């Protein structure tokens, strides 16, 4: 009974934290575009707060730079359970154009924290980011919430 109630609440209120670990911020502005009336993220119960301590979904955009190698894990530890990670864009998957000889990026992001969904594109369209969050977000969060209990 309590689990079923928690499932409903977890599915209908998803808080998102965006972490740019060293990209060109093209993906960041596509996430901001998601807030616009055209895409209207909040009608699905998804809120972009950028606060790791109350987040359910972490969006990682960017190849991992030197400063982020330790800090990313520290921020991930601060996010309360249940949590999922969605990697946006080519940078967290492979480093994109930055992953060349002489650069200071350490992609992929899955070396540092577990990644649940990946959206490729440079940058992906807002609708693709939204589809990725919706396809994995609510069900995975509810399922993981039960596991921990």
């Amino acid at each position, binding site marked *: 009974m309590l689990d079923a109630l928690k499932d409903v609440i977890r599915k209908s209120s998803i808080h998102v934290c965006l972490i*740019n670990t060293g990209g*060109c911020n093209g993906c960041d502005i596509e996430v*901001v575009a998601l807030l*616009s*009336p055209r895409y209207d993220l909040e009608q699905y119960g998804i809120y972009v707060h*950028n606060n790791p301590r109350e987040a359910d979904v972490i969006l990682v955009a960017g190849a991992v730079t030197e400063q982020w190698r330790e800090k990313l894990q520290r921020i991930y530890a601060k996010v309360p359970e249940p949590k999922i990670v969605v990697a946006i864009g080519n940078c967290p998957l492979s480093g994109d154009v*930055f992953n060349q000889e*002489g650069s*200071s990026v350490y992609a992929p992001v899955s070396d540092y924290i577990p990644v649940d969904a990946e959206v490729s594109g440079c*940058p992906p369209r807002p609708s693709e980011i939204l589809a990725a969050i919706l396809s994995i977000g609510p069900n995975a969060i509810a399922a993981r919430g039960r596991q921990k209990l």
Partner: protein
Amino acid sequence: MILPIGPIHPSLKEPLRLKLKTQGEKVLSAEIDYGYVHRGIERIMKGKTWQKGIYLSERVCGICSYIHTQTFAETFESIAGERAPLRAQYLRVLTNELDRIQSHLLANSTYFKAIEHETLFMYMLYLREPVMDAIELLTGNRVNMGWNVVGGVRMDVKQTHMDSIMKIMLKLESEFERYVEMFEKGPLVGLRSHDVGKMTRDEAIKARAVGPIGRASGLEHDLRENHHTYKDHLDLKVIWRKEGDNFARNMNRFDEITQSINLIKQVIEDLPEGDIRKKIDIPAGYGDWRNEAPRGEVTYTVETNGNLIKNISIRTPSIMNIDACAKYMFNDVATVSDAVATYASVDPCIACTERVVIVDESGKTREFDYPNYPKI
């Protein structure tokens, strides 16, 4: 007391650390830590051809990605002593102004979010989406457009595209004034914006503020005035204001959007026929080029051996503006939330700023030693 904000914080879009020195609620001074998004773009570009370099230069910054490729291409054209065909120059102006409109709308929406005026924040994003549609229609992508090449632009446009863009611009123009009036005459917004984060003209010169931030403090300086396409073919007047506070910076951006709409109309009306691209043989040499990005002046300095890039230096506007904000605007801010609003009003773009040059005290420049990167 030192109040640290960031690198991940509800009020920041990009990673940066603000250390505010506060007394009670009052902010006395601020210190800014960079380095979270340093990717080493200049170093990767060295020893590559321009075809690979232009791809990287687009990813210096996502919001003003267009102007970086244009400046990169025009640097190489200036080394060769040639110019792109006139039709290509006009198309560059068209894309540049579309990019400026979306960037300014995004910057103002971020400011309205920072002063907790959610309504105007939503209206700005509502206005921005059709402009993104226009960019997508013209270039095929919303953010990283890949529109420029050395010697011209990549694709030609059709008349139907031009008609659609014109329609989008007319609609934007008709709706735009209502929202500007909400900001200009709204009593609540005025209270949060007037006389907050002031920077005088002298301080702006000392801090080397550029773009709308400098122009809002009375610096009558816009590099588009000196650009050959704007100077010879288009009608442009520099927009500037005297107040130097948060209100002036946002109003300056609003006024520039109106001007950009006018420029786009001029371009669509007198778009000349002809080639969009020509072959340019690049000799060995050294050149630099400056352009007006949405945030101010962007400079590319390139040394090439005719085929490969031997040396490149990119100077973006955000670094000067953020420093101006930290040094001069945070001195008399009454509350921490005003400080965050002031920071949002300078339109900071962190991805732009992250470049490293170490200067020895002897004046010798040396490169950053990556394997022995100091732990911060």
